[in-house]
């Protein structure tokens, strides 16, 4: 009897941990271990195929801080992120408002805005690469009709950033609009009714009811967009097709940090240095997330 009691007691103490353990075990294997291993590799001169060439301490980090290519990639990443995210969130909010209103075939439109997100990103990259092609692209063809000289979209920093941002926005605006729509539907209808009775215009309703009520969701959506934006990889990679696309243009004008990481690891064979980039990227995302959380807190306290 006493043994059984002890067993039950132990079970009661251990069982909760056992039940939550799958998450921690999975996290330890797929999250923590790679993270720490990457840190370990980043402290070594590590060639991808030749293997570990010896411990170098923080030399890789020191080199990274003085690496103009890394800073350029970081500038590109942040630039494209800002250029893509700001119009994307504004557009998504407006779109959510429209979808929330009286609309014929509402479900059809709501499904429709999600379609771009379902499309394979590879297909998006190829299509947009062709749309913004220099010689036979549709954008340059259209511009030609109004007398604008063809633009080498990949050739300049501003134009390549713009083209990639359009690509990102095309894919993600609808997705964000649906998330915003979900939270819009939780907004009491009475607020709009009251506003209408008071004679508020649609624009006024949007500005004074929709936007304030959506603030927490907007913050959430922007955190997700931030993480995605800092890790931006596939769109710029596919934008510059052909040999050495990972360089992001001939002067790296649209190479993002994630692309730089892959380039160092697999073209440059510098696994240690690439791990350093990965760790710095990880820290950057953490910093961005903290800033976002701080913003979120402030807005909550306003409410």
């Amino acid at each position, binding site marked *: 009897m006493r043994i059984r009691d002890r067993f039950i007691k132990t079970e009661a103490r251990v069982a909760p941990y056992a039940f939550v353990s799958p998450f921690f075990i999975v996290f330890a294997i797929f999250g923590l271990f790679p993270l720490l291993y990457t840190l370990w590799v980043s402290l070594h001169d590590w060639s991808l195929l030749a293997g570990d060439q010896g411990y170098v301490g923080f030399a890789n980090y020191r080199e990274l801080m003085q690496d103009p290519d890394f800073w350029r990639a970081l500038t590109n990443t942040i630039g494209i992120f800002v250029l893509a995210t700001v119009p994307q969130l504004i557009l998504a909010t407006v779109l959510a408002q429209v979808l929330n209103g009286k609309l014929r075939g509402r479900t059809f439109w709501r499904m429709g805005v999600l379609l771009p997100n379902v499309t394979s990103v590879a297909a998006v990259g190829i299509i947009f690469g062709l749309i913004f092609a220099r*010689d036979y692209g549709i954008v340059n063809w259209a511009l030609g009709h109004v007398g604008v000289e063809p633009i080498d979209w990949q050739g300049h920093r501003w134009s390549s950033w713009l083209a990639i941002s359009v690509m990102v926005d095309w894919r993600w605006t609808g997705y964000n609009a649906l998330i915003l729509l979900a939270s819009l539907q939780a907004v009491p209808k009475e607020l709009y009714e009251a506003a209408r009775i008071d004679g508020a215009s649609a624009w006024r309703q949007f500005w004074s009811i929709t936007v304030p009520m959506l603030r927490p969701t907007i913050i959430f959506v922007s955190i997700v967009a931030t993480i995605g934006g800092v890790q931006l990889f596939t769109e710029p990679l596919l934008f510059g097709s*052909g040999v050495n696309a990972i360089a992001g243009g001939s*002067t790296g004008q649209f190479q993002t940090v994630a692309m730089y990481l892959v380039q160092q690891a697999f073209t440059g064979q510098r696994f240690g*240095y690439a791990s350093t980039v990965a760790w710095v990227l990880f820290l950057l995302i953490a910093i961005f997330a903290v800033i976002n959380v701080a913003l979120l807190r402030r807005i909550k306290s306003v409410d």
Partner: protein
Amino acid sequence: MNRTKRIAAAAVSSLVVGVLAAGCGGSSDDGSGGSVTLRVNLFGQFGYKDLYKQYESEHPGVKIVESAEGDLGKYNTKLSQQIAANAAAGDVVAIEEGQTVNFLQSADKFVNLQEHGFAEIKDDYLPFVASAATTADGKTTIGLGTDVGGLAMCYRRDLFEKAGLPTDREEVAKLWPTWEDFIATGEKFQAGIGDDKIHFVDAATNTYNSILMQGGDETYFDRDNKLVVESNPAVMNAWGLANDMIEAKLTAKLVAFSDEWNAGFKNGSFATVACPAWMTGYIKGQAGDGFAGKWDIATVPGGGGSWGGSWLSVPKSSKHQKEAIELIKFLSSKTGQLGAFKSEGRLPSLPALYDTPELKDAKNDYFNNAPTGQLFVAGAKNLQPVYLGAKNVPVRDAFENVLRSVENGQRSASDGWGEAVKAAQKAAK
């Protein structure tokens, strides 16, 4: 145990068994009467489809599955990952010329073909083909050569005619014994065609690489893997000629293998392309039947040279090494190399084949019946083995990028060289 629970338990245990079986991989293959599935990992088209059929019928119980990645960069990245991790690379993998030295760094992860009769067949290959896939100490050989990229120059007859240049391949060849003559011809072409949308060459980089690979012996690295870009005149020479081409506005400023380059074949935006044997298949695929007979092939300026070429290897992670070795021996044999030449125009690396009627009399009707066999064999016979260091690819990428930026007007030609050297030093780290 009640019924539902029992069913659930059965489901779970069968799932576990299934996962375990899947984890063991090929174990089921070996058990059932010696049937083996060989996975072949290639980039682009090697033209092996018919050869597989032949091999399968001669070796009952062997099944061959090929996966071909179109993008060489992507392929190399994936293969490096798989070899570094010693897993999942397939039973047979293709290694491209620029990557051989790189993979020799982890020669221990490939089957050493010297333990499997390499000595007997070694002398059948062009000398550098056998040595390129062998470690510096000569003890390990990781690949058997399949083809070499003997160079020629493909050109558009119709555009040449429009520009008032001769179209016959013998006469065209006489236009450009050297690259200086090639540039001069380009200037004539540009003046004759009178259309700023049509250029003489596709890109400065492709021409640059062709010239560089004619330099012989070594390019960016010496045999001690020391970066020698500044002291090797071959690099300077190729760089200078490519810049002359840019200055004369002969290039269509395209990135090789990009969507726009591909579109350029269809839209006729360039009149010549440096043309290793395997490129003929590529041009036909991209330009399409509408351009049949409009393309032709002449000898390359500077005589000979090489672009590309491949080796077949068996990674140690393969579970069917014995069968895989047999297969690569077959694919790189005379039968295998002739088959690849017939279907994709890949030029054999076995010189014994160069005098066979199959190659001597080979003509390509898409290229106005150009005698492809003779043309490419001529290129291959003049082919000088070039040593490419382990970091050849990143350094070449760096050089190409700077050249492209000069071509696109992002940098002045005078800044270019210094930038290229700087970028190369960084890439060679």
